[in-house]
């Protein structure tokens, strides 16, 4: 089994890692993420079986990350990590959602570990999504600011709704918009946390596409899928994790 631990503070993160190493030596900790954005990105890149998510993290909260993870084709098992006094605790209690209290107590963690080891079927995803829906506050996003891209000596302002898709390109993010394209320095994983998830769909770890511009999803073979765009030639890859976004009605 492979696990990801996400906590923005080093102490609690390492304490949980050490306790897991004691109680579950076979568990391989593949990522220690320092904020919600990294947790999401690391989870996509490494596909862990279990994610231990702190609730209060910068970038994306643990609940945000969980909501995204629960929508994947094969969601990992989720365990929330929080300090006593969090408003979500009673909801976890009621929804039979796994959680661990900080500072981690070996006896309590052992119970969680036993449950995770014996679990035949993964957590009912629908129940988890419903619970997260309740817990996540109706986020009032500040109006999305235009993206500033330098094109030579010019700084171009691109309104998010004009963007067709974003694509990670090694150290940059490529912004393809109506009437051109540009490179910006902000990593894709940070951009996606600030954009409206209903408008911009992540279809691949490195691709974020404006849903208004998607024409169709094509199944290429058993494992791969591609998107065609309205009025454009190029095709965008849909990774296996996101294929459940396109299932026909």
């Amino acid at each position, binding site marked *: 089994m492979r696990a990801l631990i996400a906590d923005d503070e080093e102490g*609690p993160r*390492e*304490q949980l890692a*050490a306790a897991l190493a004691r109680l579950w030596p076979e568990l391989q900790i593949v990522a220690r993420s320092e904020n919600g*954005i990294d947790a999401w990105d690391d989870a996509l890149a490494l596909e862990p079986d279990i994610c231990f998510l702190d609730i209060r993290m*910068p970038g994306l909260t643990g609940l945000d990350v969980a909501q995204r993870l629960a929508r994947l084709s094969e969601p990992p098992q989720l365990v929330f990590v929080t*300090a006593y*006094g969090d408003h979500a605790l009673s909801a976890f209690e009621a929804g039979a959602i796994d959680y661990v209290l*900080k*500072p981690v107590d070996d006896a309590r963690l052992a119970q969680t570990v036993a449950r995770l080891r014996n679990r035949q079927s993964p957590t009912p995803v629908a129940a988890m999504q419903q619970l997260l829906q309740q817990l996540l506050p109706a986020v009032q996003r500040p109006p999305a600011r235009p993206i500033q891209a330098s094109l030579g000596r010019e700084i171009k302002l691109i309104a998010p709704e004009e963007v067709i898709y974003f694509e990670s390109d090694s150290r940059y993010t490529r912004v393809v918009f109506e009437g051109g394209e540009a490179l910006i320095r902000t990593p894709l994983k940070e951009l996606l946390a600030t954009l409206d998830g209903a408008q911009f769909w992540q279809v691949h770890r490195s691709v974020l596409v404006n849903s208004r511009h998607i024409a169709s999803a094509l199944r290429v073979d058993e494992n791969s899928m591609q998107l065609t765009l309205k009025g454009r030639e190029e095709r965008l890859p849909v990774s296996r994790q996101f294929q459940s976004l396109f299932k026909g009605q």
Partner: protein
Amino acid sequence: MSAPSTPTQAKEVDWSQWICPGPRRRFSAAEMARAGQQRWPKGIDYYVLSNVGVLALVFFNELPPGLGWPVLLASLLLSLAALATARWLWRVPTRRNLNQASWVGALVWLAMAYLLAKVYGKEMLKAFMPTSTTIFTLMLSAWWFLTLYRVQQIEARLRELDEQAASQRLARRLATAQIQPHFLFNTLASLQHWVDTQDPRAAGMLRSFTRYLRATLPMFEHESLPLGQELQIVASYLEVMQARLGARLAWQIEAAPEMQDLTLPPGALLTLVENAVGHGIEPALRGGRIDVRAYREGAALRLEVQDDGAGLCAETASDGLGLANTRERLQQLYGARASLQLLAQQPGCLARITIHDEEEHRP
């Protein structure tokens, strides 16, 4: 303020009550305004007047001829006077007023006896004497009981209001006194890990954390705290957060030396700093910086907490219990001279307490 009958007083006989009876306690105008505003129960007026009227009519024909109408009129007039006096005692239920009323009543009674003897002769006086004495004594007793009842009513109301105020004050203090469990347990989590791994950071953090707890736990027993002490609490809080967040937090405290003795509601600055950490630094991907400043500007003292973090500065975003509570407690201490504002910065948030000099604010 002295209670009229504490248990020790009850054992001794208060001889002064034989000569001039009445309650010992006098209420100040403020106390009356606070607890003595109950209306005079009008039902008493109707009850007394109707009874006196009916009795006078019943005995109308029993009386010697020619006396019926004068007695009916006199008894109604006397009842009205007695009720007016009772209402006066209701408004100002003091021993002095009760005795004044009694003496005036006695004079009226004597005058009536004299008139009766003059106009109708000594025989008539003798016939009326027992009844009028009884009525007079009953009236005095009624006034006396009314005054005692009234004093106890006001006392009880005052006690009730005091208890309410005390429990509200306590609730307000407890609300601020809460050390956030989230802070407590996250700190313990770091501490435990560093102790487990014998990380040298544990020692410093434990020291700051102890200092923080020692200062915060008894903090709310005081109505106010000098700025110097408050800043020490703020510093130990920031040291703990610094140890936990590492490079994500930078901070500085700058306070003008002459302001060390300025008094503040305990925890006022700490609340602002907790908000700056919780809403500014922790949600920011790359952390940020907190500046705490105390300085004089013209005729006002300014206390500021500024962060350059995630910057949700709207009142609704960062106003939990904390800010409203701090504002209220500042007002208790300084009245209209103190204010608390939140100012949005680019990026971040500035929380500012302003306390105007007394002279400056006088109209």
